[in-house]
């Protein structure tokens, strides 16, 4: 497939550097979030789980938006590597969503006293998780490539509508969950500056990790495409 060779070469070139950068950033943010950042006034050290919880939630958003863009790309250009990006990003997004859920409920136990409650953001997040599991399910069930790619693309575009729903759910229904403290429409972040710095660093680290995983997974997918290509030729 001529369409796959270009991005594949690119992927192979950037992947190692992304790996190194990700490891470096991860270690820095680990240091900052565990030692450098001050304990929280009310919650003490428990709050530090925020440095995992929040970035993974946001990266899940990012991943699903990437799925959306790649899906549009496929329907528009029919270039196979768009589909590779879509599936890769979807899988990573599901991973990060799960991480946000787990970290969240670990955090919920000490602060709210329960692992889980029926609360808008929690529920919408869980729903988002189910949705993209459904997306992956659809991919696994459809057999031949073109059909799978097109159907998945349509779903990838439809599902992205839920991301803002998750983000805004806390505003629509009165919520137990933390209201937006960083990503706020009005005014700047309302958060201790050093905590904010740490949060931003860990977000950066998670972003690099996402980028690395994406590159790796896309590489695998493109290799699979070429195998099908080979099968077709011989």
């Amino acid at each position, binding site marked *: 497939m001529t369409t796959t060779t270009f991005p594949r070469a690119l992927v192979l070139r950037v992947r190692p550097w992304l790996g190194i950068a990700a490891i470096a950033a991860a270690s820095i943010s680990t240091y900052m979030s565990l030692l450098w950042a001050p304990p929280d006034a009310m919650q003490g050290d428990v709050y530090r789980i925020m440095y995992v919880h929040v970035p993974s939630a946001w990266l899940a958003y990012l991943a699903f938006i990437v799925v959306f863009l790649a899906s549009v790309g496929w*329907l528009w250009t029919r270039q196979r590597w768009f589909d590779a990006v879509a599936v890769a990003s979807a899988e990573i997004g599901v991973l990060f969503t799960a991480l946000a859920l787990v970290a969240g409920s670990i955090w919920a136990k000490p602060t709210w006293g329960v692992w889980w409650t029926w609360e808008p953001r929690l529920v919408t997040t869980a729903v988002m998780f189910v*949705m993209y599991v459904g997306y992956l*399910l*659809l991919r696994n*069930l459809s057999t031949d490539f073109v059909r799978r790619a097109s159907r998945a693309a*349509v779903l990838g575009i*439809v599902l992205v509508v839920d991301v803002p729903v998750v983000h805004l759910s806390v505003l629509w229904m009165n919520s137990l969950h933390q209201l937006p403290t960083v990503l706020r429409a009005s005014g700047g972040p309302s958060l201790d500056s050093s905590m904010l710095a740490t949060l931003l660093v860990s977000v950066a680290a998670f972003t690099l990790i996402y980028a690395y995983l994406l590159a790796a997974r896309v590489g695998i997918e493109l290799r699979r495409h070429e195998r099908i290509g080979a099968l077709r030729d011989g």
Partner: protein
Amino acid sequence: MIRRLGLVAGRELLAERRQPDGLVAAVTFIALLVLLESLVVGPVSARQPAVAGALFWIALAFAAILAATRSFDRELEDDALDAIIALPGGRDALFAGKVLALTAVLAIVGAVGGVLSLVLLDLEVALAGHLLLVTALGVLALPTVVVLDVVLALRLRARAALVPILALPVLIPQLVAATQGSASALSGDATGSLGWSALLLAFAFVYAVLGFTIVPAAIE
């Protein structure tokens, strides 16, 4: 385009009249669900506006899935679907027409089911107009998503399973909105019901636009 859309919808509804699988199935489904619930839950809890509303909308969602699946099953027998898809502009008209027809069916189902729940659970309605509005908008909000997911699952294994898995999560916001909306209409909270109606309208609009632009690409 509009003409073809109308043709598909008309054909669909004619087939429904001949073999009212989807429609009657949906109506009985919703009626029985409401009836059973009120029977086993006991009138007391079933008559809480929230519970009644939730019940009605969940039943309606499943009814929609049921009807849409039946209608595409019918198309697959003897490959009737292929005849349409092979026609110029067939894919777009097929999707739009099915959505239109399903909306019509759901309107009937909703009407019947709604009246039934009101009667069976004898709820008193504080704001009839608002309730009507919410119901209408809810009926508008469901079909696009459902037909869309049925199309995506078409000819796949376990589609009977896939469709609800795909559709219901996407529908949850609409269902919650519809439930809250009708609950507040029942209990007389005008602003609440209007707010939820607006949300429903927004959802209906978004998914309609999305569906009509991208779905035809996925139909084979």
